[in-house]
């Protein structure tokens, strides 16, 4: 009976189970049975008429998390933030949500000069436990949700802190290290990120942030939307970044230190060439880097568990690898340090990564627990 066959084929077509042959067969059968066309079409319309989700899954998740707590299931304390996330905000998130992401690379030669010192001083008026602090060890990365629904991905060796009162007025966080922010848009409550050398103010729409201690520059990369960067020692100047732009700020302390000014001076030359901020040798606006293979943004590749490096000196790469793998890397001699390297590490172990690097440039290494000694011989 052709009608049964037709419905069987229609069912397969609608559920995506039909083969090309079966689709052809259905077409032929419908041609031979034109009266089947209308009911088949209506059933197809009905099929594609999807039911909207009726339940607020975010609210349900809050209830679920509460239940887990009652059952004595503790997920790390950081996640309490996730679970206590304001469900109202969450439910409105899909409407208000404009993905905001700042990519921001902070590098400072001074570990001690933690940006956390600033909020700590400010928090002096209130008890210390009014602060929430999330930090990651070397070799691990985490994600967290702020009370307003803003998402933060924290790269290894980084620290994010904010007041417990976060979101009551202005939304302020302090960052030492590298993080990617997905900020929930709320024009009434601006989102501000403080670092040791700059403040970033989210103006709206979309931006991406990333920051790390232990390097020479601060980098802010904007994926979408608009952000305003205020350099701490020059509050009068505001730099507004456009999508696809990256702001590199030489770290203040580094410049002051005469020993390390070589690089800063080099940067200064480059910066002077840039018309936009040629009056300001400390600031460089450049563009985001794309991976030639799949045009992903290199600045945010760490979020996909990828360590991408382009024309990076071995010395700089070693710093990144230390954070990435949670190891210490030392060089036995200076010879190999300035060697420039390209590559991507994804699932490689530290050993595999080093072996791969050996293919590009000859060196030897010895491993002693977490200590890796690289020698050009």
């Amino acid at each position, binding site marked *: 009976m052709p*009608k049964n066959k037709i419905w069987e084929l229609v*069912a397969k077509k609608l559920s995506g189970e039909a083969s090309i042959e079966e689709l052809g067969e259905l077409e032929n059968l419908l041609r031979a049975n034109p009266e089947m066309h209308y009911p088949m079409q*209506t059933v197809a319309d009905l099929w594609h008429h999807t039911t909207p989700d009726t339940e607020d899954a975010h609210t349900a998740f809050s*209830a679920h998390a509460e239940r887990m707590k009652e059952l004595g299931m503790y997920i790390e304390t950081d996640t309490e933030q996730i679970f206590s996330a304001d469900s109202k905000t969450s439910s409105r998130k899909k409407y208000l949500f404009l993905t905001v992401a700042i990519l921001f690379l902070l590098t400072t030669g001074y570990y001690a000069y933690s940006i956390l010192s600033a909020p700590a001083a400010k928090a002096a008026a209130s008890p210390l436990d009014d602060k929430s602090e999330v930090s990651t060890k070397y070799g691990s990365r985490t*994600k*967290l949700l702020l009370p307003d629904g803003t998402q933060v991905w924290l790269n290894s060796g980084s620290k994010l802190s904010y007041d417990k009162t976060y979101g009551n007025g202005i939304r302020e966080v302090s960052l030492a290290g590298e993080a990617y922010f997905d900020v929930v848009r709320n024009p009434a409550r601006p989102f501000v990120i403080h670092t040791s050398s700059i403040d970033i103010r989210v103006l709206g729409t979309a931006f991406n942030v990333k920051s790390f201690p232990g390097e020479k520059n601060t980098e802010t990369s904007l994926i979408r939307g608009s952000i305003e960067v205020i350099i701490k020692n020059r509050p009068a100047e505001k730099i507004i970044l456009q999508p696809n732009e990256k702001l590199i700020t030489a770290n203040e302390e580094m410049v002051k230190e005469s020993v390390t000014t070589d690089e800063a001076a080099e940067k200064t030359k480059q910066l002077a060439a840039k018309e936009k901020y040629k009056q300001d040798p400390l600031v460089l606006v450049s563009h985001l880097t794309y991976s030639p293979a799949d045009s992903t943004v290199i600045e945010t590749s760490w979020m996909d568990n990828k360590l991408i490096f382009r024309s990076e000196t071995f010395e700089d790469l070693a710093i990144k690898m230390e954070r990435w793998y949670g190891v210490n890397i030392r060089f036995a001699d200076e010879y190999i340090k300035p060697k420039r390297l390209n590559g991507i590490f994804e699932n490689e172990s530290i050993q595999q990564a080093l072996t791969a690097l050996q293919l590009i440039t000859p060196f030897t290494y010895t491993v002693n627990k977490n200590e890796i000694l690289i020698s050009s011989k």
Partner: protein
Amino acid sequence: MIAAAKIKYLQEQIARNDDTFAYKELFVSFYNPLLRFAVTLVKSREQAEEVVSDVFINVWEKRKRINSITNLKVYLFIAVKNTSLNYLSKQNKNLTDSVDEAGMEFKSIYFDPEQLMVTAEMVARIRAAIEELPPKCKLIFKLIKEEELKYRDVAEILNISSKTVESQLAIALKKIGTSINFDITRTIAAPHGLSK
């Protein structure tokens, strides 16, 4: 429903990094489908919520091992089914094959006559046709249409053969299609129906 690759990614994040954010995303993505499924089984909204929550608690407890699950989506549906059946048996409800017996709640399938370009009368007819489907047939239709599950997924979840899924879905569509056809025949027979 979220893409398989995304599920796999979340699964890995949860297993490897105890990623609570990925855990939440997984919960949020599957909450509505799993709740709908649980409601059809336990027939109580409150209990269904508990079932889904229990299933996810179990996922978190076993997170280190969830990476070995090849099809997490199917796993979650099966877990909801088993948890629901356990729940019902604890309440001393006599159920031999509760999936078969379950009276499907079809509130979740809604029709917008304007979008469907059909008359309200026809919507009522379609609705009635769906309601009249045998429970298992109705459930199969619902799982494939609403939750975008594959034949073999539904077969695994309901512990039946793919062939049965295939024929049951064809029966469901035929019954719905026939109700529409009947309506047309009638409309054509009554000229005033055409002038509308």
